């Protein structure tokens, strides 16, 4: 038995328990975030050490391939940045439960890492619920009315989504008699089923609905604005990056490993994702324009970003099917992976800046950001760069990510989708730039500087550095993304 394959998960889970214990016995609460970051970096290092190993391990339940490792690194990295940025916020808002806060973030990271590696419906479901339950609690962690309401809404809608998901999984299990993705792939291929079969379509749609909730796609986005606004800002930051990435890794894995039989099935579900992408981008961007609360605005923006990301799931049709063996064909999930990396850095950067500013001004209203550029030039500059990256303009990573993703989509004959996406990018520029404008050209009532701890400044620096480095030197990360995406495309490509 190869337990070393889950060393990253074991490391992070062990540190999560250690943090709770330390919280009980140690007076120096300063240690807690440090220990948490050490644990998360340990998980990150252990993941990287597993890169390139060939043993899949745990027969049909887990497969620690490059896709899983790529996402494990994203989860650990995002959580480490959030923990670094959390210290002052946690002190101010829930100092009594510091240990529990860090432990729950780490437990949800463990769930996400299992989710990235799971290739069995049961393992996927249980890991998803580990992520879900940790995040429900974290959303309610502020324990004022708004935060509790956010947590409750998140839990109830998450419960509905997971019930729909489990029904979809049950239907797929019923059609195939298998719970492992590989078994489902073979059973569906052997029975010669397609998405014109009502039962299989029902299962697929229910599974998309269940994960559509996690990635905040329209029409499963009802929770986003309230939860983003009501949850503690640090939790929202974590949610907006890690939880979304977790949803996407499972979608990539389920659909490419279990439903990549032939071109008919693939173009069927790719079309579903294309339609959801259009809806999410358009509705998310239009709704974001009228928001006055920055967390709500970023909530709608994250719905729109989920739309752009789904373009990567729509652009898969050409890599599968007879005769296509050209390794140079652009593969949608490669673009998706690169985009998630860029989106992660940029969105975390914006949220860390929001945390720093709200620590001082105690407000999330965009109007109160007036003149922040003069009170905290470094933070405002960092936030502006990250917002520019979210729009997708140079010199930020978002530009290349969008370029690569849309280019891939054009190669797959999705020009109409790209036209809509580019139009949406133009709409989104309006509300992102509005924040930049208010921050630099608004007049503030106060001239007080905005203080920030070293951890927060460090995390913000890393985010901005990530955004810039991925723009100037993208090739290394693109190669890594390509080989991670090929871990699943290999199965699809080998199809007859």
């Amino acid at each position, binding site marked *: 038995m190869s337990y070393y394959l889950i060393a990253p998960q074991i490391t992070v889970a062990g540190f999560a328990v250690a943090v709770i214990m330390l919280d009980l016995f140690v007076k120096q609460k300063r240690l807690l975030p440090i220990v948490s970051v050490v644990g998360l970096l340990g998980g990150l290092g252990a993941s990287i050490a597993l890169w390139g190993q060939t043993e899949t391990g745990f027969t049909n*339940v887990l497969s620690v391939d490059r896709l899983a490792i790529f996402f494990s690194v994203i989860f650990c990295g995002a959580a480490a940045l959030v923990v670094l940025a959390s210290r002052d916020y946690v002190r101010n808002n829930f100092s*009594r439960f510091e240990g529990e806060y860090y*432990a*729950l973030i780490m*437990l949800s990271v463990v*769930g996400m890492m299992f989710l990235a590696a799971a290739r069995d419906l049961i393992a996927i479901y249980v890991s998803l619920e580990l992520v879900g339950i*940790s995040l429900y*609690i974290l959303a309610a962690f502020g324990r004022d009315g708004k935060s509790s309401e956010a947590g409750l809404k998140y839990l109830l809608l998450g419960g509905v989504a997971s019930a729909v998901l489990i029904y979809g999984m049950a239907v797929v299990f019923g059609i195939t008699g298998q719970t492992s993705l590989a078994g489902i792939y073979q059973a569906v291929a052997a029975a010669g089923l397609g998405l014109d079969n009502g039962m299989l*379509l029902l299962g697929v749609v229910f599974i998309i609905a269940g994960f559509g909730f996690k990635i905040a796609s329209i029409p499963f986005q009802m929770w986003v604005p309230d939860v983003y606004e009501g949850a503690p800002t640090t939790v929202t930051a974590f949610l907006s990056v890690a939880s979304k990435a977790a949803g996407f890794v499972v979608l990539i894995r389920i659909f490419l490993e279990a439903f990549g039989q032939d071109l008919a099935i693939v173009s069927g579900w790719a079309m579903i994702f294309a339609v959801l992408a259009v809806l999410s981008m358009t509705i998310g961007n239009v709704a974001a324009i009228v928001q006055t609360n920055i967390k709500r605005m970023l909530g709608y923006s994250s719905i729109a970003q989920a739309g752009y990301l789904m373009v990567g799931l729509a652009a898969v049709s050409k890599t599968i099917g007879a005769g296509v063996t050209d390794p140079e064909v652009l593969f949608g999930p490669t673009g998706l992976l690169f985009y998630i990396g860029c989106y992660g850095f940029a969105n975390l950067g914006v949220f860390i800046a929001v945390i720093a500013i709200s620590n001082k001004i105690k407000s999330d209203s965009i109007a109160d950001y007036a003149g922040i550029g003069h009170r905290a030039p470094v933070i405002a500059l960092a936030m502006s760069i990250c917002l520019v990256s979210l729009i997708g303009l140079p010199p930020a990573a978002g530009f290349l990510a969008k370029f690569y993703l849309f280019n891939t989509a054009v190669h797959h004959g999705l020009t109409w989708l790209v036209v809509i996406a580019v139009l949406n990018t133009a709409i989104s520029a309006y509300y992102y730039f509005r924040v930049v404008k208010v921050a630099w050209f608004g007049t503030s009532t106060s001239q007080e500087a905005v203080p920030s701890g070293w951890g927060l400044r460090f995390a913000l620096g890393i985010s901005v550095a990530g955004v810039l480095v991925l723009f100037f030197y993208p090739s290394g990360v693109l190669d890594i993304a390509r080989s991670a995406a090929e871990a699943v495309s290999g199965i699809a490509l080998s199809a007859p």
Partner: protein
Amino acid sequence: MAVDIAFWILAAIAVVSAVAVVTLRDVFRAAIFLILCFFTTAGIFVTLNADFLAAMQVLVYIGAVAILLIFAILFTRDVQQGNPSNKLKVPAAIVGVVLLGVMVSSAVTFGWPESVYLPELADTADIGQRLFSENGYVVPVQIAGLMLLAAAIGAIVLMREK
């Protein structure tokens, strides 16, 4: 056949009690009907040769989940008597009926294997083997353990005074 008759009776009770859960005005009575629905589900599991799951159903759903829900109702009962609906009743009902039609028609037309009489029960030892063997689901069991840890931490944090 006795199993068939049992199925029809249990199915009728399950549907009626589920309707009662969403229509009754008194939340406490709705919870009682939910328990009835859980019991009939346990009975349905018995008709499906799954006695162990039937016992689990009674223990977990009725012994834990339903009791928790009743606690929640009793704690908040002084302020909460009604069971109102939001304004989306009609569109939700239409969507529900359409969804039901799609689900039923695709289920009926699929062409499932012939049902044959099955005398023996699912072996509980097999379930245990499958759950805890290294070729089975031992990793999901560990993940479920972590999930219960997270839930326990969360329940304590959220319920304690600030």
